[in-house]
């Protein structure tokens, strides 16, 4: 078992090191084979370890790291059902993405760098997933941040990409600071950093401590999982190559925050306030992401905002005391979002790099019929149309909020349902524009779609299958809730609150209807029909608001970035140079003026010197005598 876990982590790590050390001397073919094999091997190990563990939580010390006094940071792995589900998910998506990359990136230079970071990305994510010690988890947490930085900025020659990368690293590091502080508080409270120990002794924490830690964990999750108000990095993060976006959005990055909340759920749940805030942040983020996605022009940006929205749903579920539901939605989102991103990658490559959905259209459908089918499945799943996995996972989260005793959650349920409607609307707006749009003013200059390599399309099939039929893993009927039962041994995770069958079915049918209404609205607004040439109008303020993601970037720029830069300039020019240094050199000048006076003493006459010497000695003796007295 231990060796399985070791190999699970070592394969991608060695893959990354191999690329890092051999670097430019590496043959492209070998580079690809090693990278894909590393992740595929890791996937096999993840499955094997899950089978061997058989649903029981196991903890293994892997390596010593460091320990001083009570602070012990050892690299301990914990493989319980939660970790197993995540590890399999991460390696599965990552393996497909690696395979996809081999074709998608075949014309790009810098492949050694690309696969190095890609493998390391998977490694660090697996560290997060399997870590028991909080500092070991932190290693993965920061490592993922760095890899995302390197990959988003993969095309570093363009300042836009490099800026997006920097933004991702910085914003997620704000979350890291929160996590670091939470680790510090855990350490003072428990003198232990083992999450297994912490979750089983969470009751020892005082109410204030629980609240503080709960909010810090939420802030940490907000950084990595792009929740409000730290969501701003994710829409820009699509500057990276499309396979990287798929990886970030489905497996290796944004799920880390949600996973942290699940892992430490027994602590979070102790504070009703923290839970309430978590649920509220989730609901508002879901609505925010969905509204922003409505007005985007870039195919990847729509999907990025949609990820923000779906992450909000997951956190909403956790806040409503259904962590298993949150995890179920995480899985579901991973399948359909990876599918949509990879399909989008096929479209972008077919159109030689075109991202603007207003330049796509029915030609794409004709050129890429298989991609069209896969994209439709992904869109249905995202819109939560039965019987896709997206329907079951979202339905469950909404139902949990409605059955929650607090009236507050009823409000969140309303927001969630509204978001479901908007979700169906934006995703089918995207779908119709991409595959059915007729020739418009911008479309006439659009590039002709070309064919894509079949392997690219093949990687979509497993994802399409899961996005369509994956719901079977956790159906709310009888004993079909396999996921719920598998996760039972994990502290804090279990089936949701019981609801009356009539309410359950009412909500379920209601959700399906809402989703269909959304699709219908999208059809009315953007559906295939003889095209009326609309005069180009200036976008109104509502469109601007949505397009810019509620001006969040501008707000940050105005209230955080600019004041920060101004403070830096002020401190640097006025305080450091003009203030502190001036005092220092000023005192130096004062000293030299004094020394001018002192120079009068250097008369060159022996008698003066002797006199002064005598006076000095007398003074010293007097002081000594006084001291002795």
């Amino acid at each position, binding site marked *: 078992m231990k060796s399985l876990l070791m190999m699970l982590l070592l394969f991608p790590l060695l893959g990354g090191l191999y690329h*890092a050390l051999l*670097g*430019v001397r590496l043959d492209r073919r070998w580079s690809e084979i090693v990278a894909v094999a590393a992740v595929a091997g890791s996937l096999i190990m993840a499955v094997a370890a899950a089978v061997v563990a058989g649903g029981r939580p196991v903890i293994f010390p892997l390596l*010593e*790291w*460091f*320990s*001083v*006094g*009570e*602070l012990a*940071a050892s690299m301990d792995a914990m493989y319980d059902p939660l970790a197993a589900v995540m590890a399999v998910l991460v390696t599965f998506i990552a393996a497909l993405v690696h395979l996809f990359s081999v074709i998608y990136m075949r014309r790009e230079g810098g492949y050694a760098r690309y696969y190095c970071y890609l493998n390391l990305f998977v490694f660090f994510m697996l560290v997060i997933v399997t870590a028991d010690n909080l*500092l070991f988890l*932190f*290693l993965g*947490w*920061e*490592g993922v941040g*760095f890899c995302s930085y390197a990959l988003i*900025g993969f095309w*570093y*020659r*363009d*300042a836009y990409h*490099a*800026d997006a990368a*920097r933004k991702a*690293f*910085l914003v997620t*590091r*704000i979350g*890291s*600071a929160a996590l*670091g*502080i939470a*680790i*510090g*508080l855990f*350490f*003072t409270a428990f003198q232990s950093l083992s999450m297994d120990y912490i979750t089983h002794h969470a009751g020892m924490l005082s109410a204030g401590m629980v609240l503080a830690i709960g909010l810090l964990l939420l802030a940490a999750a907000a950084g990595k999982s792009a929740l409000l108000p730290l969501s701003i990095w994710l829409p820009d993060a699509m500057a990276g190559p499309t396979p990287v976006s798929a990886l970030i959005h489905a497996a290796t990055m944004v799920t880390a925050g949600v996973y942290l909340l699940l892992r430490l759920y027994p602590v979070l749940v102790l504070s009703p306030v923290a839970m309430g805030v978590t649920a509220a942040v989730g609901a508002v983020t879901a609505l925010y992401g969905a509204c922003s996605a409505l007005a985007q022009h870039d195919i990847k940006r729509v999907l990025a905002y949609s990820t923000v929205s779906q992450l909000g749903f997951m956190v909403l579920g956790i806040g409503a005391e259904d962590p298993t539901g949150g995890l179920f939605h995480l899985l579901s989102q991973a399948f359909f979002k990876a599918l949509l991103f990879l399909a989008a990658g096929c479209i972008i490559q077919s159109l030689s790099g075109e991202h603007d959905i207003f330049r796509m259209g029915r030609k794409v459908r004709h050129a890429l019929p298989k991609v069209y089918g896969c994209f439709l499945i992904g869109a249905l799943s995202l819109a939560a149309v039965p019987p896709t996995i997206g329907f079951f996972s979202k339905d469950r989260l909404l139902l949990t909020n409605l059955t929650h005793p607090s009236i507050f959650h009823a409000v969140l349920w309303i927001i969630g349902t509204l978001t479901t409607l908007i979700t169906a609307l934006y995703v089918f707006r995207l779908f119709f524009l991409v595959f059915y749009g007729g020739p418009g003013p911008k479309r006439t200059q659009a590039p002709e779609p070309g064919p894509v390599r079949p392997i690219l399309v093949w990687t979509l099939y497993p994802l399409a299958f899961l996005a369509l039929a994956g719901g079977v893993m956790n159906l709310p009927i009888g004993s079909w809730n396999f996921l719920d039962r598998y996760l039972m041994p994990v502290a804090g995770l279990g089936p949701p609150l019981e609801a009356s069958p009539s309410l359950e079915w009412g909500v379920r049918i209601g959700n399906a209807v809402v989703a269909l209404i959304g699709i219908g609205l999208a059809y009315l607004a953007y559906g295939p029909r003889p095209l009326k040439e609309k005069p180009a109008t200036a976008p109104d303020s509502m469109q601007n608001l949505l397009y810019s993601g509620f001006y969040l970037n501008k707000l940050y720029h105005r209230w955080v970035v600019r004041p*920060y*830069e101004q*403070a*830096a*300039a002020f*401190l*640097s*020019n006025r305080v*450091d140079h003009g203030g*502190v*240094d001036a*005092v*220092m050199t000023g005192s*130096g000048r004062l000293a030299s003026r004094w020394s001018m006076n002192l120079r009068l003493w250097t008369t060159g006459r022996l008698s003066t010197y002797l006199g002064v010497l005598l006076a000095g000695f007398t003074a010293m003796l007097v002081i*000594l005598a006084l*001291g*002795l007295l």
Partner: protein
Amino acid sequence: MRLLLTLILFLPLIGGIAVLFFRRHPDRCRWVSLGVTLADLILVLVVWFGTDPMPGAMDGRRLFVDLPWIPALGIRYFLLLDGISLVMILLTAFLMVLCILASWRSIADRAGIYYFALLATETAVMGVFLAGDLFLFYLFWELQLIPIFFLIGLWGHPDRVRAAVRFFIFSMAGGLLLLIAIIGLYLIHGAQTEVYGFARYQLMNTTLGPAVEWWLFGAFLLGFGVKIPIVPVHTWLPDAHTEAPTAGSVILAGLLLKTGAYGLLRFGFPLFPTAAARSVPILLTLGLVGLFYIAWIALTQQDIKRIVAYSSISHMGLVVVGLAVWNEIALSGAVIQMVNHGITTSALFILVGILEERGHSRQLGDYHGLWHRMPVFSGFFLFFAMAAVGLPGLNNFIGEILILMGTFQEWPAAGIIGFIGIVLTLIYFLRLVQNLLFGPVDERMPGDDITQREAAVLIPLALAVLWIGLHPGPLLDLLAPSVAHLADLVGGNGGAADYVASGAM
């Protein structure tokens, strides 16, 4: 083995004097210096693997020499090597070898004197780390100034003379305060016990009134604080670093700053425990303010070397925090952080030096898109920059997390602020990385990547980064007994008495 301590200490100086005889043959100077520093490094390694903490001695000492030197004044030739000293001289010997290698080509002019200055610095710095007698300590403390002054003043960049003088005046002012306080303590101790002496174990035994203790501690703090440097007295550092030749910057950042923190650790706090304990809030504030303040200042700098120099102040601010907290975890962290800072900052200075040799500029605006032209250089740069911002798995993280976790035990608020401060470090480092490495490809950028000699300098540093980052156990074990002893000394009650008991053996 006892002779070994003296040999380690003076071998570089002897080698330096020998180099002066070859000063007409720069190449021979280089090889002799390299041989001497390597031999010294090997000797330090021999001491590491060949000694253990002495059984019975509570302070974890491994070796010591204690001989009367100037009996009339009670001055002793007292060298003491414990875990902390060993780690520090290991760092010194290691960095010195790299300094010699790093300046292999860039120094052609007056090479003999240059290498003499480097080697003399090694002896002086090691003396600071080994001295157990306060007078001897002070002697080495002032001795290190002289070769560095010439290193900056003779082989530095255009504005070198001003920077050298500034450095000298700041250091001298601090040193004079220190001297006055040392003499004061000596006189008070002598008056109380009738035994006049400077040895640490003697002076520990002094009873001081609160006011006197405050004044003396204040003088020590200022004297050491200038060197560390603690924030309001830091303004000499950016100039000195920027104008110094690469090896000078490495010595300044990697070693000289450490002597200040080491002085506080070894003498400042243990000699004046009450005053030190009372000044903790002030020191924490200064250290943390430094972290934020420097993050802001560094963001506006245009000179690459200056940015790295400012990052030094910020990292050392964290060391001050670790010292102020003074428990086992934070102290270990502070010492490890000194070593880490020595490694990463030296590496960054060396990289900037390499860049400057090729591009003849240190301005950030003059470079972009280096990744395309010099991929190996860029890889190293990114690696060490990530180490400097405390990415886990690399060395600085270990020091930072130990300091902050130790801080959390006593001063949670300071720990929280510290974590936030570390985020800010990332901002200016990413600006640096982004401006240098990323951006459009430009064929006018320097294109000759790292040479083998440069790789020979950078690879050991990179390995050290990984070693401390992933497996700091051996280093921490080395420190453990000494650090535990020091932690008891100030925090616990009656610690001073234990110390005297163990010291007198």
